[in-house]
Structure formats: structure tokens, C-alpha cells
């Protein structure tokens, strides 16, 4: 009986951790057909593609395959990007096909993502504060720093955007109300900056030298609870 249970457990574990090879093969085919021209053959972006906004280095993405599938489906703009340079593919592909692409990216290029996120979160020395205190700290920093680019409402509209939009290299800040990320991911983006997580430039900088983890965690909490979903 014990042996039988053991085999069953192994089979169950395998079924949870593996993705059908046919589906992965289809993901690879569709990625090569569609995504490779911008994101490159190995998820490092295609250096020959001269776009105003350089595509993300998918190998460094903080997004899970589920989150990637949503962005592939509805496009970057639906989740806060200023432009629709990452277009929606739900008009082109079926839901399952899109999931296959996302899974292919996660399992082929972005293989270290889970371990990296886990390690960085475990390194955080943020103190546990009650929600009210986090809100107060987060709101103050958001107003002092984040709102200058993302706007007081987090909608990506600010004086900074107005003053800088003639700069050809300027990248427009995200509409945070639409972000797909959870609180941990927001914390890691704020702490390490967007470039670390696959953005071409350091327009969303790393704030780790300026604020400690407790404060950065409070900012992430404020954004997640008071900004996201308010559009």
C-alpha cells in the first residue's frame, strides 16, 4: 500500500510540474513565428530591431507565466504600459496557444525567475508593520517621489511627463492603476529598478540606496491597496 501511495505521489507531482511537450513545442513554434523579431531568439531582445521602446529582456522578467499570458493576450497597454508597442494577441491566437507561448518563455528563458524572486524576498529585512502605518509611510514616499512621474493618482500623468515628453529617449511612466503585479513584485521592482527586471533603461530607478526595505515595502503596500484597480 505504501509503495502504491509513493508511486501515486510521484505521478501526481510530475503531473503538476510538467507541461505537455506538445504544448511547449507549439509555444516554441508560435514564439519563433511572432515574438522573436522583438524579443530575440533567447529572450534577450533582438538587437537589430530599432524600436523607440526596446522590448523587455524576457529572460530577466519578474512576471510569472500566468501574468505573461495575460499581457500576451491583451497587450501591454491594458496593464499600464503607455503604448501598445507590445500588442494584444488575443485576436490572433487562442487562449491555449497564448498560454503555451508564456509557458515556453518561462521554461526556456526565464528559468531562474522563481528562485531569484524567492531569494531576494528572503533577503529583505523589512519590519512587519500594521497596515495603517504602512499606508502612512507609503503614501508619504509615493507623494514625495513616485507621484512626480506616475502622478498623484498613479495614472502615469504628471508634470514630469509634461516637462520631459519632448525628450526622444523619454519613456512614459506606467499607469500603476492597471498593473498586473502583486505586492511582492512591486516591492522588488521599486527596490531593484525596472532595468534589473528586463527593462531596457533605468527610467524606473532602483530606490534601495535611498530607502530601507520597510519603507519600500510600505510603498508597495500603498500602491497595491490604494492605487491598483482605481481606474
Amino acid at each position, binding site marked *: 500500500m505504501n509503495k502504491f501511495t509513493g508511486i501515486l505521489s510521484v505521478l501526481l507531482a510530475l503531473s503538476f510540474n510538467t507541461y505537455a511537450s506538445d504544448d511547449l513545442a507549439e509555444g516554441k513554434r508560435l514564439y519563433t513565428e511572432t515574438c522573436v523579431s522583438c524579443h530575440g531568439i533567447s529572450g534577450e531582445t533582438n538587437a537589430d530591431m530599432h524600436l523607440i521602446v526596446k522590448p523587455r529582456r524576457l529572460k530577466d522578467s519578474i512576471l510569472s507565466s500566468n501574468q505573461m499570458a495575460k499581457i500576451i493576450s491583451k497587450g501591454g497597454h491594458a496593464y499600464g504600459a503607455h503604448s501598445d508597442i507590445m500588442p494584444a494577441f488575443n485576436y490572433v491566437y487562442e487562449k491555449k496557444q497564448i498560454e503555451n507561448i508564456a509557458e515556453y518563455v518561462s521554461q526556456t528563458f526565464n528559468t531562474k525567475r522563481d528562485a531569484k524572486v524567492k531569494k531576494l524576498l528572503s533577503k529583505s529585512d523589512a519590519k512587519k508593520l500594521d497596515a495603517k502605518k504602512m499606508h502612512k509611510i507609503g503614501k508619504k514616499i509615493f507623494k*514625495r*517621489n513616485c507621484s*512626480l*512621474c506616475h502622478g498623484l493618482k498613479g495614472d502615469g500623468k504628471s*508634470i*514630469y511627463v509634461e*516637462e*520631459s515628453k*519632448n*525628450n*526622444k*529617449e*523619454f519613456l512614459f511612466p506606467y499607469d500603476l492603476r492597471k498593473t498586473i503585479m502583486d505586492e511582492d513584485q512591486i516591492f522588488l521592482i521599486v527596490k531593484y529598478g525596472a532595468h534589473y527586471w528586463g527593462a531596457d533603461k533605468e527610467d524606473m*530607478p*532602483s*530606490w534601495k*540606496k*535611498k530607502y530601507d526595505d520597510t519603507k519600500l515595502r510600505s510603498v508597495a503596500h500603498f500602491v497595491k491597496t490604494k492605487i491598483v484597480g482605481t481606474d
Partner: protein
Amino acid sequence: MKKIVTTLCIAATLSVGLSAKNWVINQKGKTFIPSKLTVHVGDTITFENSDPFAHNAYTDDEANEFDVGMQPTGKETHMKVKSKESFNVECAIHPNMLLEVTVQ
């Protein structure tokens, strides 16, 4: 006697006013140039912006507190050193920018 004291006071005020300097700090490449400055009370610091995007210099130091607000490309802003306490100036948008101001 009163007249002498008054004259001396005026002279002292004038000499401080005359010796007050204006220091120019350029913001270029997301850096304050120079990044260290030694000033006296009464001096003025002028912030230039040569970057193709806006900056927002400020300090949280209470004695010399200031916030120039959003400063577009090509515009100048000024702050006066009010207290003899040294302070740091940062940019509210670009967290790696730091200007260390020593007040003598």
C-alpha cells in the same frame, strides 16, 4: 556711541552681503556637478538643468529646507543658505543624485 554701533552694524551687514557668493551646480547625466560644495551662510546655490528631462532638487534638512519643485531642461532655480548646518541635496526623481553641501 549709538551712531557708531549703528554704522558698524550697517557695515557688517554690507560686508556679509558683498561677500556672499553664488555657486552654480549643474544637473547633467543624472548627477550634480560638482557633487560636493563648501559654502557660507548667506551664499546662494543656483541649480542648472542640462539634462533633456526634468529634475527636482530638494533637501529634508530642517535648517536649510528647500524644494525647487519640478525643474525643466534649461531652467535655473536658486536657494539661499540660511543656516550653518551642512546638508545633502537630492533629486526627488533620480535617487542616485547626491550633492553634499558643507556650510562653514
